[in-house]
Structure formats: structure tokens, C-alpha cells
């Protein structure tokens, strides 16, 4: 799956979990850019992304993600 497909599916998941239809993700988006993206919701986002793509992040990855792009990259790599 290509990065563009992954991030667009990410966008759907973010809208669903954070209950905000206005979210538009880019590679550089971080938690600071999205009001509802707090630490609790972050846990839920990870769960939903894992479920959706049928992948599993390691705790190292979860801790090191700096922005949406890095999360998407991790998914792209896992799906290869």
C-alpha cells in the first residue's frame, strides 16, 4: 500500500476516534495540531490503526512517533 492510501485511511480513523470531521492530516501533523489528540485518545488511535491495517506496533515505535508521517511510514513498511 502506498503512503497516500495509508494516510487517507488514517484520516478516516482520526475522524472516527476523535469525533471531528474537520481533521485533515498531512505528513507533518502532530498531536499539537489537533485539539482532541490527547494522550488518552492517542492510545485509542494506535489501537484502531493496528486493528484497521492488521499490524502491530512495538512499544519502541509507539513511543518514537513524532508525527503522522512516521506512523504512516511504519504501516507502509509493515505491509510490504
Amino acid at each position, binding site marked *: 500500500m502506498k503512503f497516500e492510501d495509508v494516510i487517507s485511511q488514517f484520516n478516516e480513523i482520526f475522524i472516527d476516534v476523535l469525533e471531528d470531521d474537520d481533521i485533515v492530516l498531512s505528513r507533518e501533523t502532530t498531536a499539537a495540531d489537533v485539539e482532541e489528540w490527547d494522550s*488518552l485518545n492517542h*492510545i485509542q488511535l494506535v*489501537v484502531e490503526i493496528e486493528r484497521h491495517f492488521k499490524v502491530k506496533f*512495538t*512499544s519502541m515505535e*509507539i513511543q518514537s512517533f513524532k508525527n503522522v508521517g512516521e506512523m504512516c511510514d511504519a504501516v507502509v513498511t509493515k505491509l510490504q
Partner: protein
Amino acid sequence: MDFNTLRKQAKKYSATETGKTVRVAVLANHASQFLTKSVQYQAKINNLNIELYEADYNQIQSTIVNPNSEMYAFKPDYVYISHSARKLIPRFYGLDAAGKRAFASEFVSELGSLVDLLASRAGCQVIVSNLEEIDDSVFGSLGSTTVSSLLYQLRVINTQLRTLCMENRYLHLADVQSLILRKGYEQAFSPQQYITADLTFSTDFTVLLGEQLVQLLKAFTGDIKKCLILDLDNTLWGGIIGDDGLENIQLGDLGIGKAFSDLQKWAKQLKNRGIILAVCSKNQEMLAKEPFEKHPDMALSLDDIAVFVANWSNKADNIRYIKEVLNIGYDSMVFLDDNPAERDIVKGELPEVSVPDLPGDPAEYLPFLMNLNLFETISYSENDSDRTRQYQEEAKRKALSKSFTDMSGFLDSLDMKGTFEPFSDFDIARIAQLTQRSNQFNLRTVRYTDSEIADIREGENSIGFSVKLSDKFGDYGLISVLIGRKQSEEELFIDTWIMSCRVLERGVEKYVLNRLVDEVKKLGFKSIVGEYLPTRKNGLVKDHYHNLGFVQKENLWYLDLNSYQGFDVSITMA
């Protein structure tokens, strides 16, 4: 169901407009944000009004010990204390061998005194969770039998917690370990969520924790199931009795008969606990009864079934009939049927009836039903098991009443004997249960737990009477409860007046009032004050005080004891 699905489901439900709000404080030794969210969502889905207070992380002890904590100001009706074993591990590992061997006893005795303090200060019910029985594999297989192992000590904690809950009427157990047995610890715990977010229960597992707590709270508020209505063909046995015949229906060792036999045996255990069983089947009655009478592998007999309905009418109509006979609410009924079309009809016409969507494979019926935990309860008394017999006796009374043209002749012929006595120790569980379960003949719908009933019995300003009734057909047992609160030296307020609907129209309320007046006059009271608080279900008693000659002043009803004449009744003292 996963956490996100629960969240979305809950959004579909609007807040309930009826019912009292229960105030619940959650105290946890672990990060409980997802747990409290799950409780909120589950409450919404299950039609329970709830207000939650979440104590600070890992502050169980200080929250309880500090009399000025926010938790006390919140005035909880229930406090849920949730411990995660994983959070106890560092403390356990820090102990020497002797300390490890005493770990469980110390943990439980510490918790016991905290809970005592909490209950006496807040006057609330306390629900404690038990612990995950984690095996750290330090001792290999020997861990189970090595006193200083983690697993051994956690298991002792769970055993001692059970004892503690059995000994204290205000203390109740939320059996988390049983949920873990159901789901497996790999589902209950996510190493990634634990390491990155310090969650000791996975977000998805909190869905079950929340459900467990909400089911308990619903039982506390009297929202419980009393009756299981069973379809026959392909539900209680495999095949169709009308087509396949007695020899070919699948039961016992025949075909997949074990699945059906197991379900029957389970239903029989429920019946022995006090759940009423009824049959509702599209069948010819004679054919439908044949297996009950003749098949050697039937676990259920006709004696186990309080109401047996087999005909070709609409099942919703038949359930309406069953409700009439049993005189219980639709919301206390569960209907089991393998046929999705029949289930849809009942769901559509009687939305309050619980209609589980049985799996397609009968092998899964029983595991599925056990997981639903439909028959939650917070009290059990031995006489619950007589309930089916009582309903059968009632059928005989109904038959007799048809032979009389006048009511008083019928009542006299019943040869009724009553007792009216102060609360006794033996009856506390049954009294509490009646306050939890009665919805119709219930003037103020105040629910009490065992411990609260014990307090009323001992209180200086409260007085409680229970009423028992028998007649020539059998014993009704304890069927009515009165709780009075002393307003002044001369005035007694009736906090609770409830009666089982099984004894409606027997003149019991008049007998009770006669006796109440006798008893409280002796105590020096001059008047009795009653109140009717309407609910969705207690319309039956809206004119109760009027009919008994009480005089209304504003919202209250007054009875002057000196001018009280007494009613003629057909009940004599036992």
C-alpha cells in the same frame, strides 16, 4: 466488543429520562480513565443513570482515610475499588521471603479496615474487584504450591476477598478474574499499552470491566431478570417434535443432543435458584408436552415450567399472556428462541423483553448465554427456589376462585393465616430482596441492601415489619414489608410499604394496616403518614392510601390512629 465500538454504540443512545441516578466513585490503584469511560458508555447502553467520580491515580488509601476528600463530598451510593495485581508486583518483589508469605493476608486485612472505614463514613455499598491471577513463572510449575510465589499469594488474596465479601453485608465482589478466564489474560492485558501508557488492563478489556460493574449496579437498583421463556423446537431439543416425532428429536446422546441437554440442565439450575421458567412454542400443546412427559433425556419436566403456552398464535401475544399470569414486568423477562424471525417479532412488539440473538450453532447456545450473565443478582435466599411451586399453587387458587361468585366467600374459603412481626435476622436477605424486586405494589420504591435492612432493624428511629401469609394451598412466605421512620414522638412516617403482587386482592393490605395500627399505638404513636411517589410501574397503588381511609394534605396522607376502626379481613393470625 472493542472499546471504540462501545464508544460509538453509546453515542446512539440518549440519556435515560427515567430512574434514579446512582452515584458511583471509582478508586483504583491503576490508570482508570478507560475503565471509567467504559462504565459510562455501558451505563448509557444499559439504561442506567449514573454519575461518576474518579479518584486520583493510585490514591485509594488517602481518598478513604482523609475525611475531607472529594470522594466523601461527592456522596457516593457505591464505591468501586479496583486493584490491578500488576501494580502490586513491585511491592511484592521488594519483600523478603517471610514478607512474601504474609503478603496476601496483609493486603486483605488492610483493605478490610479501609473498607470498614469507608462504609461507616459514607454509608455506601462497596464493590471490590479481585485480582488478575498472574503467573510470573519465577517458580515454574511449583508456583501454584509455593507459598512465597506471586501466583500463590494472588490466589490467596482472591480467596480471602471472597470471604471478606461474604462476611460483610455492605461489601460485594466484582469478579475480574472470572472475566479474565473468559477472555484470556492475553486479551485482558496489552504489553504495549502497559509500557507506553501504563495501562494494566487493555482498553478493550475495560469494556468487560465496565459491563460487569453496570450489571451489578443494575441489580442493586432492582433491575433484574426473573423469568426465562423458552421456545421448544431447536431451542430445548434438536429437531421439530411435530415432524420428527418423540424418538427422533435430538437430546442426550442422539446427534447434537448434548448441546440441548446441557442448556436444559442449566435452565433447571436457574429454576432451582428462583428464576421462573415458562414455555412459549408454536406447537400443538399435546405434542409439545410429550417429550416432557416421556423422553428419558429431558432434564426439564412439566413441574419445572410455571406457564406452558403452546399454540399457533403470535409469540408476542403469548408472552403478554405469560406476563399476565406471572404478574411481572416485561423488563424482567428473557426470551430464548432459535428463530430470528420470531425473535424480531418479540423485539418489535415488546422491546422491554430481553431477546438474546442465539448463535446459529446450538453448540454455542450455552457458552453464549453464560457469557451474557443475564441473571445478575446481589442477593439469594433459600426460599427463592420455591418460586415455581408458588406459581403453580397460584394456578390452583385461580381455578377455585372461578367457583365462587362473591369475593369474600372465596377469601374465607382460602383459610388464610398471617404473621406480622418485627424484622428478624433470618429474614433480612428476603426483606432486602423484596425491596429490590417489587416495582408495582411499592409506594415509594426505595431499594435497600441487606446491611441497610439490618441497620433499620437496629435503628432507634426506624421500625420494620415483615408479613408472611399462607393458605390452604401452600405457603406464600414473606410477602410484604413496612418500614416506618419516627418523625416525632407521635408521628410515624411510612418510608416503605411494599407487597408481592402474588397476594393482590386478598385483603392483605387491610390486614397489615390493622396490625400496624395495633403495634404502633403500643409505641405511643398518634398518627401514621404515608406518601406515594409515582414511578413508571407503581400506578397500581396510586389510590392505596385513599382506599385505606388516609386523609390527604398536600402530598402526604395522614391516618389518625385514635379514630381508626379497623377493617374486616379474612386473614387470621398464624
